[in-house]
């Protein structure tokens, strides 16, 4: 019986090592779980990477997968969160034809109202950047698509948890 699925944000603190992406993504792949988005970056701790993944699955599955991720030698700690437990942002950019900027007044309003920002303008095209929650980005995309979007791309989610993640403390307890 399929259990009810939910969206979870997974945060993984890891050593900064080659090959780990392969190991972690394989854990999802084996269970036929699609990774909606993935982001890897430096973290607040030197030489520790932080990964943010967004996945849809049941909480029971999520718990088991966190156990499997945590078990990897180079993973310091893995957490999963529901949307209410985190503050998150995603970012996206749109490339559009420059003449729209001058011919379609509406576009300027949309940019202003959505708190997006124009990154660059040249003769042929201009680029808009927007950071925010998923729904805000989707709304902006819907509004702009009426005018024709030349290119659109969106980043993985980045998030911080409302609760503390005691990574530094945890690192002290690992023996060196």
């Amino acid at each position: 019986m399929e259990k009810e699925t939910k969206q979870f944000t997974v945060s993984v603190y890891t050593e900064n090592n080659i090959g780990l992406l392969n190991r972690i993504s394989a854990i999802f792949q084996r269970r036929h779980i699609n990774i909606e988005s993935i982001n890897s970056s430096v973290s607040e701790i030197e030489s520790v990477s932080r990964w943010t993944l967004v996945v849809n699955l049941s909480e029971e599955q999520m718990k088991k997968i966190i156990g499997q991720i945590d078990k990897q030698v180079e993973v310091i700690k893995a957490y999963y969160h529901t949307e209410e437990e985190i503050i998150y942002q995603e970012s996206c950019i749109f490339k559009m034809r420059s003449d729209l900027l001058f011919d379609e007044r509406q576009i300027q309003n949309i940019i202003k109202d959505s708190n997006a920002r124009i990154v660059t303008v040249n003769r042929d095209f201009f680029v808009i950047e927007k950071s925010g929650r998923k729904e805000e980005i989707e709304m902006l995309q819907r509004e702009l698509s009426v005018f024709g979007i030349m290119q659109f791309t969106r980043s993985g989610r980045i998030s911080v948890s409302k609760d503390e993640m005691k990574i530094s403390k945890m690192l002290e307890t690992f023996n060196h």
Partner: protein
Amino acid sequence: MQTKTIQNTQKAVQKTERISGSEAVVRCLLAEGVDILYGYPGGAIMPIYDELYKYQDKIHHVLTRHEQGATHSAQGYARISGKVGVAMATSGPGATNLITGIADAQIDSTPMVCITGQVASHLLGSDAFQETDIVGISTPVTKWNHQITKASEIPEVLAKAFYIAKSGRPGPVLIDITKDAQFEEFDFSYKKCTGVRSYKPVPETDPNSLKAAAELINNAKKPLVVWGQGIILSEAEEAFKAFIEKAGIPSAWTILGVSAIPTEHPLNVGMLGMHGNYAPNVLTNECDVLIAIGMRFDDRVTGNLDKYAKQAKVIHFEIDPAEVDKNVKTDVAILGDAKASLESILPLINKNSHPDWHQKFKDLYAIEYEKVIKHDLHPTKEGLTMGEVLHQINLESKGEAAIVSDVGQHQMIACRYAKFNQTKSNITSGGLGTMGFGLPAAIGAKMAAPERQVVSISGDGGYQMTIQELGTIFQQKTAVKIVVLNNDFLGMVRQWQQLFFDKRYASTEMTNPDFVAIAKGYYINARRVTKREELAEAVKEMMQSKEAYFLEVCVEKEGNVFPMVPSGASVSDIRLS
């Protein structure tokens, strides 16, 4: 005295010296106490082989006939000794041939370090001759893996490899070394690894969980212990015995757990799972507290999870937190090392004996004996049974032999009927069920424990998957005893075809070669038995032989292994015929 020598060698290896990467590999192996390794050479690992030539008085390289054989031999070595097994191969096909053994070691938690050669680093990713992305390929089946492209990384990475392979829940590690790194010179010094940041091999044990478990155990009327290899891996045999004896709990085993306590121990109530014993399977669904120790509720053990021990409170002693609640929901999880946990819980446990509960096991055993065991071990019908061969081996070995089995009906029969007095004596491929495992694993086991009798038991199918390792046995003069139970079928598959596919024997009948002639071709003493009257004498001759010995026993063609829990059924729906 002892400590002094250790300190001296520590000092000796710590001063630096300019040597090549390949010499460093050999020095690291020596520093880790490796004196034997299994492998197969080739272009990308030749520098290391060249160094091994120089160090052949200190480290014995066993040339197997196939890289898969090297991994299984390393596994056999590791399983019987508790040490890390080492296997080595060249890049490309050599490396990919290791994968089956690595996957097998991963699922059976066997400590193993595999070293592969790799093309020079400037060729990486160019589809160079014999280049494969072995790190990518082996990722899902290793506990850890790493590619070295600079000689200076060798000491630290190898130290880490051995530490990770052996610590916590053990497993296989693969280290891939580019050819240029093998040639490069650097200032060598070696320090053993004692910890890796981000890796906690043994989780902390919560004292409250021990208390909660003790309370459940002390109040249980019908407790059942199910134990697995975790007991053997954490060397908890004595602590385990003390625990079950004090609490008086009937205890059943998974096939990797058997031999942790002697077969004849009065609290040993037999094997769990698909071809396990009647009593422990049926009574799993009757016990009130199920105490799982160092086992992971594999589906071959549990049958249908929806009908598994639903009435019982479950206590799980486990080193790997990811195993807790993975298959069976637990009421109390005791994380940590089995030995330490069992020692800590002992004082909290009341002395008990549960005589009525034990009687139920005896009653069900009597039924199984009448319906199955008697006919397996003491048949009166024509046609030799696999069980009677095991019975003869038991009589000769007196429970002192290590039994290495392959995969199939003979494996289930070997696990069900072999008698063990010593721990680490049942070596078989449990989780992966790898045909071809038995013969090469027996080589490793015999080399790790030359003073012991090592008997390999294979079917005619699996034997032919790694039959070429007879060459290794001959060359190394490894005195293993090789038994092939020949039924001219891929027996286990044929049994399923008979029971579940209307006897449609699709591609399971085997026309076999003259196995005795093949063994003799490798200069190994060999004999074939086709009649019951010859069996006892032949087994005796084999067991008394000082050298390797091959015994083919032609057994009944369509014998079946019972009891059986058909897949998808509940353990209490176990069939006796």
